[in-house]
């Protein structure tokens, strides 16, 4: 147990180090984009103004407000000290909204869309994969090429096909948005129904593409496990095939768990394009607009959220792995 604690301590130290480096890069990289965000904002506000002096004053006020007149290392110190206090700064593009407010309102949409979609596609994909490996014959002969085909389609391409088919041609689902345009978010039944209606296309476009990749991986792993010696031994002990398939599922699903955790971690950035195609009010759209407006604090905020997600997911995988696979736990204790 002592060695296990040692393993965990060193693991946590590595995660902290990675996080520190990530914070630095999250701050630095957006600021390396050529162009000046302040002049974009100022030119918008001062359109129609003729007095160069007052334009210059507006420019200076904004530069001071955003702290862009200070040297970059000083900006970084301010950024870090604000971050420690839970303040991610003010958005340039959506001034004067706070970055934390923008992230908080959009992440609900992203998680609401992505979490169920990833989990559903993971479960469906893995169950179909193990069945294809076990049943073989007709089932596998049909499903395998279908999986292969679906997994090769990029998610945005698939999303566009879905929009065209269900929203434009068949007109059975709305094409864009998180809810109807004429509505204001409120806890009413009609709003909820509208959300549910707008939910279907983005949800299924993520699920279907996800199933393809998951089931292919699971099928390969299951075929390998089904040929393992313990399967033959269990059969000769007179165990039911349904029981043996359960063993096989548990063993074959282990590498898939890493995949699940990673896709959960990257879910914020992963659905960026799907969210844009459907104009879904999630983090993906926010990040996309922030990059377009050179909104440094908002870009840093989004990427920091994604980084944290990936790190936490990886850390959880390490723990969960040790719990379900005794072989990993032994390796961790060495």
């Amino acid at each position, binding site marked *: 147990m002592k060695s296990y604690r040692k393993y965990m301590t060193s693991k946590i130290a590595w995660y902290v180090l990675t996080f520190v480096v990530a914070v630095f890069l999250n701050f630095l990289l957006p600021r390396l984009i050529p162009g000046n965000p302040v002049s974009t904002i100022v030119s918008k506000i001062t359109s129609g103004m003729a007095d160069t002096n007052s334009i210059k004053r507006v420019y200076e006020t904004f530069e001071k407000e955003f702290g862009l007149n200070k040297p970059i290392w000083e900006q970084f110190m301010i950024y870090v000290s604000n971050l420690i206090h839970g303040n991610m700064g003010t958005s340039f593009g959506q001034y004067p909204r706070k970055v934390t407010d923008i992230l908080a309102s959009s992440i609900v949409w992203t998680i609401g869309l992505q979490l169920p979609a990833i989990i559903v596609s993971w479960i469906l994909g893995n169950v179909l994969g193990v069945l294809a490996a076990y049943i073989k014959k007709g089932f596998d002969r049909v499903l395998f090429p279908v999986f292969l085909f679906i997994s090769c389609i990029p998610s945005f391409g698939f999303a566009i096909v879905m929009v065209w088919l269900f929203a434009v041609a068949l007109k059975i689902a709305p094409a864009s948005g998180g809810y109807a345009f004429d509505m204001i978010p409120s806890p009413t039944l009609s709003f909820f129904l509208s959300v549910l209606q707008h939910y279907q296309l983005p949800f299924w476009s993520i699920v279907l593409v996800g199933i393809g990749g998951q089931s292919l991986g699971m099928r390969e792993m299951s075929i390998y496990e089904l040929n393992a010696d313990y399967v033959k031994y269990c*059969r*000769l002990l007179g165990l039911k095939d349904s029981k043996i398939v359960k063993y096989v599922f*548990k063993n074959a699903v282990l590498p898939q768990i890493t995949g699940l955790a990673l896709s959960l971690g990257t879910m914020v950035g992963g659905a960026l394009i799907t969210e844009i195609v459907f104009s879904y009010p999630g983090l993906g759209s926010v990040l996309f607009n922030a990059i377009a407006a050179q909104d440094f604090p908002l870009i840093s905020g989004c990427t920091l959220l994604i980084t944290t997600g990936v790190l936490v997911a990886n850390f959880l995988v390490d723990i969960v792995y040790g719990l379900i696979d005794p072989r990993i736990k032994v390796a961790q204790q060495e």
Partner: protein
Amino acid sequence: MAEMLLQVENLKSVYKTRFNERIVAVDDVSFNLENGKCLGIAGESGSGKSTLAMSIMGYYHPPLFYESGAIYISGIDIAKLPYNQLREKILGKEIAYIPQAAMNALNPTQKIINLVADVMKEHVKGITINEIKKIAEERFETLNLPKDVLQRYPIELSGGMKQRTVIAISTILNPKILVADEPTSALDVTSQKIVIKLLKDLLKRGFIKAMIFITHELPLLYNIADEIIVMYAGEVVESGKAEEIIFDPIHPYSHGLMNSIIVPEKGIKGKKLAVIPGAPPNLKLKLEGCRFFERCQFAKDECKNGRIDIKCANERNYRCVFGVEELKEMYEDDKKPATT
């Protein structure tokens, strides 16, 4: 006469490849297994020993297919039994198996007790987990295995311990027949002895009624088997009492096998080792005459053609065109130095 537990009659099993080739891995094999006896099956790699083990358990999974013959266990011909009935009534209950590679035979992510529980629940209706634990702990203690093995994962056990655990699991339901497929091949000599002792113990205590012990090591069989059948290229080439086969083999192949055993002695490094030259024939081809023909140093033209049947002469069963006396003479001549 003792009770017959297993009767195998003219059994033939084939492997079918993807390209529709047929490999007859078990060809016309017949034998009986009596109550209280241990039957040894010997032969080199690829002789069909393990396939025979699978076949007598009725375990026909592609690419292995049943072709003809019968396997009687408790009066039922299990070769013709549907898999579901075989699984429910026979496997694990009447006939049990110890695999060749016990190292990988246990599910790596399952505690030993859970496998035992699954096996017992499958065959004993309405048994509770507490009863299972009690039975398993008692059995492990009787067989001199530490009780705490039950709460462990396979990775936490040594090779020898894994093999003994597998033996205990396979026999937990007191099956009549135990088929042990090279249970000692991967073990060091000390663990081998422990496993052999354990298997003998199972027979003595009546946890199993009879055993089939498969190995490529003939001397080992002398230690445990009452009777031996020697297989070559899917056929039985000789069968009889263990002592006779070990000390007085009749068939040229059994004779060659016994001669190739390496006994540690002084100056062995300088000695030329006796081997049987060549390799077994390709079983995909339709074979005529004696299958050992190409490798047999005593072969003559008459060995080449027709089908050579098992014959019973001087109370010995063997598959060769020559008579017992004739063969013995040949072996004597062979022993003499070449100069005389």
